């Protein structure tokens, strides 16, 4: 069947801001789908509120709306654009839910818009547990006994009938948010309340628990002709009970016989045929490890995180093919790189996916894994045996370990470790390795962890190899042949040089030298989806070690000029999809400039690891060893390290010292910006002020410096991204506490102590070519200093910054760019105090989080321009090309007083439209976490809002970021004493808008004194939980809670209130600045009443 000709314009809905459970994989899927539709000649209209994505780039779709992903806004887009059809299955659960709402509300019918792909009834059947159960029962597929409940009482009855243990799954939530296991009535009460409140339809499923079963997933595809195929299957290392997004996953399955594999394959295909899915679909099974009994757990009739992983693991582009199927093409009519799309990939390698958790930053969140996803990102690695694959994944995670070994378990005794692995802790795999290292029996470990013995035995191969290497070193054998063989074997198991060195008593460089002398090098194998059955050249490679006498390297090194771009690794708090945006743009630009562009990265969710983006993709850990192996093979003309966030920038120095040509900002310039001493010298030379501060290397020194500077001070470890462990400290007692507990201060890890200046934060992104600087825009942050810039709302253009201050900022930025020696992108954060004095907070000599936002707001593709600059172009040359189509760009000359040359900083006319960036948080996924905004970054994503007035733009940004904006209801207020005066006019504004005000006793009295009628709520510390009950009851629209930042003390009340609010999905504000913005917006949209 040929593609449909009755449609010409297709609306694609993206997934919005990144939250846990819905991350960059939908940028990858969406980008692929849009390009795939364009390739077929359709006009693509895209709706996505996430500015950090590639898919919202003008290259990807024809018309782009970065409007909030709500029914109201999408309906407006549809009425305005009148698309012929809508593609729902690409934007994750958000996109799917929206499409379903549009259908139900009749918008699609009203506007004559066809739903492409799987029809709405099928989606409903797959998503509605009850209907899905009916469907499975009708085709004889086993599902777990379960009951849908809408009240706690029904839930308790159901659990009794099914029998404990049971699992609670809320309907229509992302990443299984709000679900969990319960062994008894007590537990179910707590979990079910939460689940019901989080489900948009207040429904949850009580289901038999099959904890301990194997969890197996199949990625399947079906077309309109009923051809159905499997792309691949995946086995979760963690058994059922851990969300697949949080589990270590291998692809393909390792412990299934042909019979089990095909039993489940048949089942998956039968289900998608019964559902009449058109496109990609994910089916999850629980398989009894002791029999053939299985249950269908879940079906996702859309592309998903698993489908992104499956695409990268198999080389089969699921989203691309799904998009083509949705316009009527059949699997046998769609051509892939080397086969037809109706072929099932055959893998000749093992893929290992490991999740990246935020517990390093969210130390108060529980790290026990369950049915609610907690990981912010993931890495994938590829090897020819399981240990190799897993060790590469461990190296890719960037969690401070370089091998399957964590220091923290060294001291634990065996019993503690066994106990630890019984629960699914995020890092239990390292505890398992430790137990094996101590010779603990495999069966003890499988018994405790319920992880299949296959995997434990494979991990044992790793710990056995460590022992062998150690014993070799201990006996000091000089037999060269044996050592060569030993190292070769260790390399085949995926050992890095560093750990081999540890075991042998050598350092990394000595191991490397030995390897070079004895020709132990990796070879690169291709991911060709067909196990090399068909002749093809797919430029997608992974490394492995093969026998030297027959080592076939498949990566063909061309004689073209080439540039390697280092990616940004797994998504974590502070380093998100924004860095992938810059990486991909750089690659496009490099290719345009005629170079061969090579990417090294390990994140399966991203666009950059789609092998069609670059000329060559190496899917490898971003460590010196793994990167150097590629560099030695490719011998590139340059390596770009300034676009892949801190991951890549950290590699710049070591690579440069090995003689690698780093293009763009060099390692000396990086050091000038990141090293405290040299940065201070630079500022002194340029006469640019910064808050007074010092780096300290001991507790005593820290206390002394803080006293000298005067409290409050801002403290943080050096060399971190996203403000990890950054705090404002108000007095010496807290300072000592911080230095003792929050960071381990020593010679190698200095802690920075700065004067805390209260003021407005301003941020710029710029490009410097060594001669001139271009700054496309200045952004003003809503929240004052003290809230991490990544968690702040940000405006472009600025709203309250005077022209004089702007000129100062431009001047400082220009001179800093030149003075630091930037070649390419850089980012500077400033503080403007109440006297309009401008201070530098920091210079980031690399691409930043705000580059995509600012690029989209200003219309200047910063990453492209910066890449051209790195390749040798100049700012003036670049601007000459632009001036004709974008406004006026005015240069201000800079007096650097050094070389006598004329330098300038260029700044274009500011936009007349307002652009606002708002952070999106994932607090409700992380039980126990305190949602207070602080200098430590907590947001997982961001959304954009733009309009002709600032308040409308803010309204859109807030809505798009997931804030529930309601213009009536109750505001619950608990304030720190120091904030009361400032908060008063704000609360009054709520009061005037017609809100009820509730407050804890101190706050309430203060408000009453000032004429605001307030209902008093008792504090928890007074022995009452009425405040929590109010929040739970559902009538509270906003919780406003501030804590005394100067004291640094966490009031238990505050913590409990904030937890209750996040767990019950009540909008909460911890910064009065955000409240002010909210009120500005609410006043714009609300008509209030007043006496005559």
């Amino acid at each position, binding site marked *: 069947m040929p593609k449909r000709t009755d449609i010409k314009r297709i609306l694609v809905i993206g997934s919005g801001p990144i939250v846990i459970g819905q991350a960059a994989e939908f940028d990858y899927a969406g980008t692929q789908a849009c390009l795939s539709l364009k390739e077929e000649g359709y006009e693509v209209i895209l709706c996505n509120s996430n500015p950090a994505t590639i898919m919202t780039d003008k290259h990807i779709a024809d018309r782009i709306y970065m409007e909030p992903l709500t029914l109201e806004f999408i309906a407006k887009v549809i009425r305005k654009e009148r698309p012929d059809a809508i593609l729902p299955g690409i934007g994750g659960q958000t996109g799917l839910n929206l499409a379903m709402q549009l259908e139900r509300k009749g918008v699609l019918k009203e506007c004559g818009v066809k739903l492409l792909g799987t029809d709405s009834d099928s989606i409903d059947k797959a998503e509605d547990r009850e209907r899905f159960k009916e469907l499975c029962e009708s*085709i*004889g597929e*086993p599902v777990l006994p379960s009951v849908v409940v809408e009240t706690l009482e029904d839930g308790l009855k159901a659990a009794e009938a099914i029998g404990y243990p049971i699992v609670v799954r809320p309907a229509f939530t992302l990443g299984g948010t709000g679900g969990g296991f319960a062994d008894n009535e007590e537990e179910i009460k707590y979990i079910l309340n939460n689940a019901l409140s989080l489900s948009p339809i207040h429904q949850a499923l009580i289901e038999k628990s099959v904890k301990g079963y194997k969890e197996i997933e199949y990625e399947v595809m079906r077309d309109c*002709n*009923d*051809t159905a195929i499997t792309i691949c299957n995946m086995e979760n290392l963690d058994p059922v009970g851990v969300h697949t997004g949080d589990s270590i996953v291998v692809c*393909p*399955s390792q*412990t*299934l*016989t*042909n*019979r089990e*594999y*095909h*039993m489940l*394959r*048949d*089942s998956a295909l*039968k289900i998608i*045929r019964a559902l009449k899915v058109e496109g990609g679909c994910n089916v999850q099974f629980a398989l009894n*490890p*002791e*029999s053939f009994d299985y249950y269908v757990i879940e079906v996702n009739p859309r592309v998903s995180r698993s489908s992104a992983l499956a695409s990268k693991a198999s080389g089969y582009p699921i989203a691309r093919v799904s998009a083509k199927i949705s316009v009527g093409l059949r*699997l*046998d009519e769609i051509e892939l790189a080397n*086969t*037809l799309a*109706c*072929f*099932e990939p*055959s*893998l*000749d390698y*093992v893929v290992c996916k490991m999740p990246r958790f935020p517990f390093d930053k969210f130390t108060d969140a529980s790290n026990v894994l369950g049915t609610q996803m907690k990981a912010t990102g993931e890495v994938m690695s590829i090897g*020819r*045996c399981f240990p190799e694959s897993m060790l590469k994944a461990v190296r890719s995670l960037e969690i401070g370990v370089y091998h399957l070994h964590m220091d923290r378990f060294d001291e634990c005794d065996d019993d503690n470790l066994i106990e630890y692995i019984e629960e699914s802790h995020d890092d239990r795999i390292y505890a398992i390795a430790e137990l094996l290292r*101590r*010779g603990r029996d495999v069966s*003890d470990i499988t018994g405790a962890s319920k992880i299949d*013995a*296959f995997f434990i035995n494979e991990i044992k191969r790793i710990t*056995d190899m460590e*022992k062998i290497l150690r*014993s070799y070193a201990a006996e000091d054998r000089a037999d060269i*042949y044996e050592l060569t063989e*030993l190292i070769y*074997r260790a390399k085949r198991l995926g050992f890095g040089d560093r750990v081999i060195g540890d075991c042998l008593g050598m350092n990394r460089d000595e191991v490397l030298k030995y390897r070079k002398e004895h020709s132990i090098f990796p070879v690169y194998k291709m991911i060709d989806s*067909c*196990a*090399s*059955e*068909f*002749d093809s050249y797919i430029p997608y490679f992974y490394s492995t070690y*093969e*026998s030297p*006498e*027959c*080592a*076939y390297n498949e990566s063909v090194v061309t004689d073209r000029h080439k540039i390697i771009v280092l990616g940004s690794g797994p998504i974590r708090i502070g380093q998100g999809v924004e860095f992938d945006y810059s990486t991909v743009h750089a690659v496009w630009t490099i290719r345009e400039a005629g170079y061969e562009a090579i990417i090294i990265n390990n994140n399966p969710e991203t666009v950059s690891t789609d092998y069609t983006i670059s000329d060559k993709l190496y899917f490898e850990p971003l460590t010196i060893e793994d990167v150097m192996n590629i560099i030695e093979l490719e011998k590139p003309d340059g390596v770009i390290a300034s676009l892949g966030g801190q991951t890549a920038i950290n590699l710049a120095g070591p690579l440069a010292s090995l003689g690698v040509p780093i293009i763009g900002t060099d390692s000396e310039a990086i050091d000038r910006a990141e090293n405290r001493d040299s940065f201070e010298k630079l500022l002194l030379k340029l006469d640019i002020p910064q808050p007074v501060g010092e780096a300290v290397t001991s507790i005593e020194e820290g206390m002394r410096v803080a006293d000298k500077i005067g409290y409050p001070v801002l403290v943080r470890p050096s060399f971190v991204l996203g403000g990890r462990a950054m705090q404002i400290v108000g007095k010496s007692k807290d300072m000592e506490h911080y230095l003792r507990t929050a960071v381990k201060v020593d010679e190698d890890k200095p802690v920075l102590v700065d004067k805390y200046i209260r003021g407005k934060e301003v941020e710029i992104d710029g490009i410097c070519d060594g001669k001139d600087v271009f700054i496309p825009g200045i952004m003003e942050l809503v929240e004052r200093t003290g809230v991490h810039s990544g968690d702040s709302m940000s405006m472009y253009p600025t709203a309250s910054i005077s022209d004089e201050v702007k000129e100062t900022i431009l001047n400082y930025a220009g001179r800093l760019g030149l003075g630091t020696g930037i070649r390419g992108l850089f980012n500077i954060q400033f503080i403007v105090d109440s006297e309009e004095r401008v201070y530098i907070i920091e210079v980031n000599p690399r691409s930043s989080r705000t580059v995509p936002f600012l690029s989209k707001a200003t219309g200047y593709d910063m990453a492209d321009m910066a890449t051209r600059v790195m390749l040798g172009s100049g700012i003036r040359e670049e601007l000459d090309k632009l001036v004709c189509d974008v406004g006026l760009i005015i240069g201000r000359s800079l007096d650097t007083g050094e070389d006598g040359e004329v330098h300038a900083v260029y700044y274009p006319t500011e936009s007349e439209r307002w652009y606002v960036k708002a952070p999106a948080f994932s607090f409700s996924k992380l039980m126990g976490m305190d949602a207070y905004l602080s200098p430590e970054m907590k947001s997982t994503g961001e959304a954009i809002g733009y309009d002709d007035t600032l308040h409308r733009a803010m309204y859109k940004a807030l809505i798009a970021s997931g804030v529930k904006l309601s213009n009536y209801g109750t505001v619950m207020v608990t304030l720190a004493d120091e904030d009361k005066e400032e908060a008063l006019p704000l609360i009054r504004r709520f009061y005037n808008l017609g809100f009820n005000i509730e407050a804890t006793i101190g706050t309430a009295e203060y408000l009453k004194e000032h004429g605001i009628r307030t209902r008093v709520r008792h504090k928890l510390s007074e022995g009452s939980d009425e405040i929590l009950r109010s929040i739970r009851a559902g009538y509270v629209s906003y919780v406003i809670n501030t804590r005394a930042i100067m004291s640094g003390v966490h009031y238990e009340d505050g913590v409990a209130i904030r937890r209750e609010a996040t767990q019950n999905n009540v909008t909460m504000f911890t910064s009065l600045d955000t409240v002010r913005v909210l009120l500005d917006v609410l006043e714009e949209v609300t008509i209030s009443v007043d006496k005559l």
Partner: protein
Amino acid sequence: MYAVTLSQGKGKNMSIQTENKMNNVINATNMAKNRKLVLESGEVFNGYGFGANTEKVLELVFNTSMVGYQEIISDPSYTDQAVVMTYPLIGNYGINEDDYESQSPSIGALIVREYNDTPSNFRASGSLQSIMKKYGISGIYGVDTRAITRIIRSRGSLKSLITFIDKPLSECMVILNRSVLPTDAVSRVTAASIWKADIFAPMDNMYYMGHADHTYPSSHSDQLGGYGHKSGGVHRLHVVAIDCGMKQNILRSLLARGCRVTVVPYDTPAKVIMSLKPDGVFISNGPGDPTDVPQCIDTVRSLKGTVPIFGICLGHQILSLAYGAKTYKLKFGHRGGNHPVKDIEADTIEITSQNHSYAVDRESIKDTRLKITHVNLLDDTVEGVACEEDMAFSVQYHPESAPGPQDSGYLFDKFIDNMMNARNRKEGIYA
């Protein structure tokens, strides 16, 4: 394996146990490469031995299935072949009692990247190499199976030798050049004599290649009420299966549909077969070149038109030859479980299990009474033919699966339909 035995006495002697394990491990790892694979084109791949020590010149082929090594080693069609598994991890789930495709595995050798000797699966009754040792199948692991596969792909399947590592290359090459691959494999794997498989074996020990809507594994008994045929009723059709090296799952698939099966050796004359009063004749898969079994082709030639016939793989080639078509050897064959095949008439696509070196020549079919019913979507080779008026049809791929996808069970139903129709016609029901 001192350590393993000890470890079962949990907890006790912990220190001794650890120590012994250490020694054990170290000794094991000092084992240097001890075997090599030599190709007739001169390449040498050094690796580690597993399985038996037999040294034989074998045809080297590759298989892209990611699961099903037990079915593969016991599939008689692999007789005298050294099979490179492109999937690198082999042995993970061991060997069990149920998944054999023949009583005595006759594969030549197995070549893998990683061999796992500590199987994990609830049915595992032993390790892969224990069975390979028992049946004299040699193995080599630790070699670059992807490199070997690429050699096979570019040069075609070729002769190979697995031997001890120190055997001089020149000596290996002499052996390789001198030896001729055998052509009598079918005679070695066929049934020794006529035997009846008229039992209805318990289903939890076998695959059931059912309708597209079959339920597995929970409700076989329902499916098999009335012996599983969709027309209902107990038919007890009698199938004579010509055994050229028949896979067990073909037998299971026929039995599960209520057939009585009489298995006959490949060279059983037509007269003898007809004397068994079959409702239909099945021609099985088997090793090698179909033109090496002219007796069988002759038999089918005289049977065609008199009784419904169904052929699989070698059986498909034999049927085609019997109708006058020609066969040829593919460069490196199809072995795996992922090729899409299109049923031309129904316009449907099934993913198939494949294992063949030879194929039926598309052009040569034009001059016969056969029509092409199935085609491979990847290389356009002939995957199925039929002569409808004779109620004869065959497919190149393996609808019985084991290993591989189970999309094509409908072909067994079609065979049964044909036999029912023929019986009804004979009995005058539709005459």
